[in-house]
């Protein structure tokens, strides 16, 4: 009885496992292409001194 209560408590978000995997894969791909783009830019143009910090891809 106690164990089933525990599972109910700690398992509220398990339905979101798949979506997190998909979102993380999409974000990973975006970061990858962003890196490639920075490298191409750096090849053709003189790289700037400041680090190309992760730009917000938010919103």
């Amino acid at each position, binding site marked *: 009885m*106690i164990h089933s*209560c*525990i599972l109910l*408590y*700690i*398992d*509220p*978000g*398990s*339905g*979101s*496992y*798949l*979506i*997190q*995997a*998909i*979102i*993380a*894969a*999409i*974000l*990973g791909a975006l*970061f990858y292409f962003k890196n490639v783009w920075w490298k191409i830019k750096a090849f053709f143009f003189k790289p700037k001194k400041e680090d190309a910090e*992760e730009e*917000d*891809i*938010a*919103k």
Partner: protein
Amino acid sequence: MITFTRHPSSFKDPSGFVFESGGRICRQVNQYYAAEYRQLMESGLYKHLTDNNLLISHQELPENLTNTAEWYTTLIPEPVSQISYPYEWCFEQLRDAALLTLSVLRTSLQFGMILKDATPYNIQFNRGKAVFIDTLSFDKYNAQQPWIAYRQFCQCFLFPLYMEYYLKTDIQKILSTYLDGIPVDFIAKLLPLKSRLSLGVWLHVYLQQTAAASAKAPNNKTGKQAMQFSKKKLLDLTGHLTNIIKNFPEGRSYKTTWSNYYEDTILSKAYLQEKEKIVRAYCGDSTARSVLDLGANDGHFSKVFAGNNMQVIATDADSRCISRLYQEVKKNNIQNLLPLILDIANPSPAIGFHNQERAAFHDRIKTDLVAALALVHHLVIGKNISLPALAGYFNDIAPELIIEFVPKEDEKVKQMLSTRPDTFIDYDQAHFEAYFSVYFDMLAQTPVPGTSRILYRMKRK
């Protein structure tokens, strides 16, 4: 024998519970959570979080105050002066609570732990800043597993913020209905079409809605064993959430009835100065240490009370006023002023399981003094709350009261009455004093020079 009262909201987590004993708020850690608790304390995570004021600190008391078999240890957390809930917070307060949750999560990962839940009820505003209060939310981190509280985080933080951002409307009443956060189906139907241009909305709302719908279908293969996760993926995900929330603008520009009240209305600077002098004198005569300022607007007088070393709760029904005040409190690091959204005609009720999980506003917020400045006419004429009913209300909440009476001769009241029939036959100074005298002793009465308004200081009989 020591007696204790278990907090009515503390019934979900088998790791422990909050209780009150001997006037102290305590938190019991159960045997079930012993290993995680030890990891929190011994990994350096607790020290790191408390040193940076992200987590509430506690003293450990090795005494079984509840006399229960599952007891492991007892914690005495640093007291939080007033408890507030997300449906009383403005946009920026919810935004800061969301960022704090993500910051605590990302710090925990460095110490091999993770947050097992992500609800705004784990956060309180203490000394002017958001602080994490649930010491039992930390779990051992398994790098193969995604974040179990991701959906809860979206429902409780991200979706309400999206709603307020895109719909430009207050979401507090909705949050008090959806205690577990806004369901993805609901927000997906409400957000405007242009929101689909945002990567964040597309990923966290629409994609999640699609996944949720397919997960409900029978025989789907979306079991958690079907995929692998990694720490990098989790950091990408939480980093993305942090960027979305950080990029919500502070101090949005849309204007409401009250947001420029003092600038736009007939209320002059001289009036405010005169009133301030009187309020300061009243404060000097009072021994109150805590104040509830009702209808605080831009918090002009809340700051006067705070300047007198009182613990102040500044409330207004207008979220823009509270938002501006909160940003000012943050900027100037005013530690004893907490701005909250409160509609006096409909204050936060008791809600949740057994109607006891989250207490009603006035059962939770108790102060020595209540201030109601330039408020009575809005309640009586604007909200049709009769003077005797109002006197009874203040009797319930105010051991001491500073109140301003604004008579019918006042320009503001004339303005209010110009658009409606004057049915307020007993709205005058004599009746006001008679009704309030039933419950209160009048300690002082001072006309505000240059106006027909009168300030009173009263003490409950």
